[in-house]
């Protein structure tokens, strides 16, 4: 049996009176693993403990067989893509990658070649000389991803990489993340609060709720549970009234409601998988300008409660 990539034993981390993780126990093996949980469940805390930027209060965590805390050598084998955007607007994509490559000790012609390679991998080769301030949301995510793979790490930790992206960008990012595993062989742990995004990447998930790992394994069982609950999705953008009308005609739609100046719609669906399969096509055909789309995941909360009580 393969050694686990990450193993935790009775791992806890709290910030003052706020609990980040509570007796968290998990084993994550090779491949792509989805870390699913609602906002504030402890996903980011877990990833920050795994990348050594947080110290556990109690318990143990081993990453690739080593304790990550203050273990700068281990960081050569880990690529981390944070959920927030701390890219400097004033630098170009190439300058950002030069810095990150330099932080890993890559230099000269090797660094230049490596930047050319990974910029091609993430589809940013033509944008490298533009300032990051002019990048779209999707481009910023791509350049962050490039920064996390520049040193060819064994393990990639991606914290909510799809958050806030529009459907087209999400689709392309999902393809990119898949290719990072399938073609380049990176083991990936990706956090999200939307099960259906992760489902497109992997069938291996771990559920995290209120700082505890409450279930892990195949996604299909969890999905069946979730399908029993209506799924709420928020869509923001311009010219979305046509989309709202069209959605009402779809079999999976339970209701569609407008919010705030008719620029936001809340869609309740019974079969989220069908919704996510068709929504990109609908948006393209109706020529809508979608700014954001995200799941409220009330239903996921219900499933978590069910699992915790069960």
């Amino acid at each position, binding site marked *: 049996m393969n050694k686990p990539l990450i193993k935790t034993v009775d791992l806890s981390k709290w910030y003052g009176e706020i609990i980040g993780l509570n007796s968290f126990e998990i084993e994550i093996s090779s491949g792509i693993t989805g870390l699913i949980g609602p906002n504030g469940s402890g996903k980011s805390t877990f990833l920050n403990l795994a990348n050594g930027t947080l110290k556990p209060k109690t318990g143990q965590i081993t990453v690739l067989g080593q304790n990550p805390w203050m273990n700068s050598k281990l960081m050569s084998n880990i690529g981390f893509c944070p959920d927030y955007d701390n890219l400097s607007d004033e630098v170009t994509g190439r300058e950002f990658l030069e810095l990150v490559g330099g932080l*890993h000790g890559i230099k000269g012609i090797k660094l230049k070649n490596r930047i050319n390679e990974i910029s091609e991998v993430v589809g940013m080769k033509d944008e490298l000389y533009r300032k990051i301030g002019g990048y779209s949301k999707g481009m910023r995510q791509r350049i962050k991803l490039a920064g996390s793979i520049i040193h060819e790490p064994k393990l990639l930790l991606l914290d909510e990489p799809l958050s806030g992206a529009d459907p087209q960008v999400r689709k392309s990012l999902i393809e990119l993340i898949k290719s990072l595993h399938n073609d380049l062989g990176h083991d990936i742990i990706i956090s999200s609060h939307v099960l259906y995004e992760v489902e497109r990447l992997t069938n291996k998930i771990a559920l995290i709720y209120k700082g505890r790992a409450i279930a892990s394994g195949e996604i299909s069982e969890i999905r069946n549970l979730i399908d029993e609950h209506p799924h709420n999705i928020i869509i923001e953008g311009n010219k979305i009234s046509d989309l709202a009308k069209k959605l009402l005609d779809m079999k999976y739609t339970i209701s569609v409601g407008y919010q705030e100046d008719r620029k936001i719609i809340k869609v309740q669906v019974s079969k989220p998988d069908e919704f996510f399969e068709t929504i990109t096509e609908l948006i393209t055909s109706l020529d809508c300008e979608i700014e954001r789309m995200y799941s409220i995941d009330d239903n996921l909360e219900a499933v978590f409660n069910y699992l915790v009580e069960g």
Partner: protein
Amino acid sequence: MGIDRIKYRPWNGEKSSHFRRVYAISRKIFFQKMKSKGILAILIIGIILVHAFPILFGAVIPHEELTAEMMVGDNVLIGSYLKNGLSIIFILLLVSVACSDLIAQDLNDKSFVLYFSRPIKTLDYLTGKMGGVIGVISILTLVPLIVFCLVMIGTQTGDDYGSSLNILGKTIIAGILTTVFFISYGVMISSLTKKKTYAGVGIFISFFVLTTIGSFFTTFDQNWSLVSPTNLLFYSYDMIYGFDLPTDLNPNIFGVLFVCILFIPLVVTYFQVYRIEVGK
């Protein structure tokens, strides 16, 4: 989208090049600062107002050799090149602008993760950051001093070049000391706040507050003049060039304050970054 499997070749290079990683941070900081119009303006105006005239003047005035009196004494021709109040103001302005966001910006936008989720230790991070800003500040605190000395040596009428080169060496030490002296203070203030404006103003104001306190209490005891960072720096120049401290100053107090103002800010900065890196 897609990946050309044949074209892709994973990087298998050296991953533990320590110096390279620190240099990458310094390089980024140096070029980022040198793109700032504010910093460029201070550098250009400072060099013209503080250094250009003494350098030109020194070149045309006949002199036998470069002497310590020209640097810190009361030379009849040059005055005291190093002990120049205007120079301190420009250095302080430059340090306030260049150091203000050095740590504060990372505190504000969580950029620490960019560094510490990679093979970078706290000391590497601080060395890299300070290295970059040392490069910038040196343009005002070290480079003109060397140019001045070289001009004076090049135009001297006497043949005691050994003595002049000795002064050049001491001047380089004085320039390095000035740079580190101001930067360690500036970086500490930057590590104490998330707002670079507060840090910038804090660096500038706190220097003047200490100077004012020193001046006020000097009437009671001359040792109070050592509370002023400027005086402390000027007295340390005297020591470097082989002059004695004024007799009414206690050398022990001078030593303690000098070590405190040079090293305590570095220690505070290290633990401040370390504390934040650890997380609360």
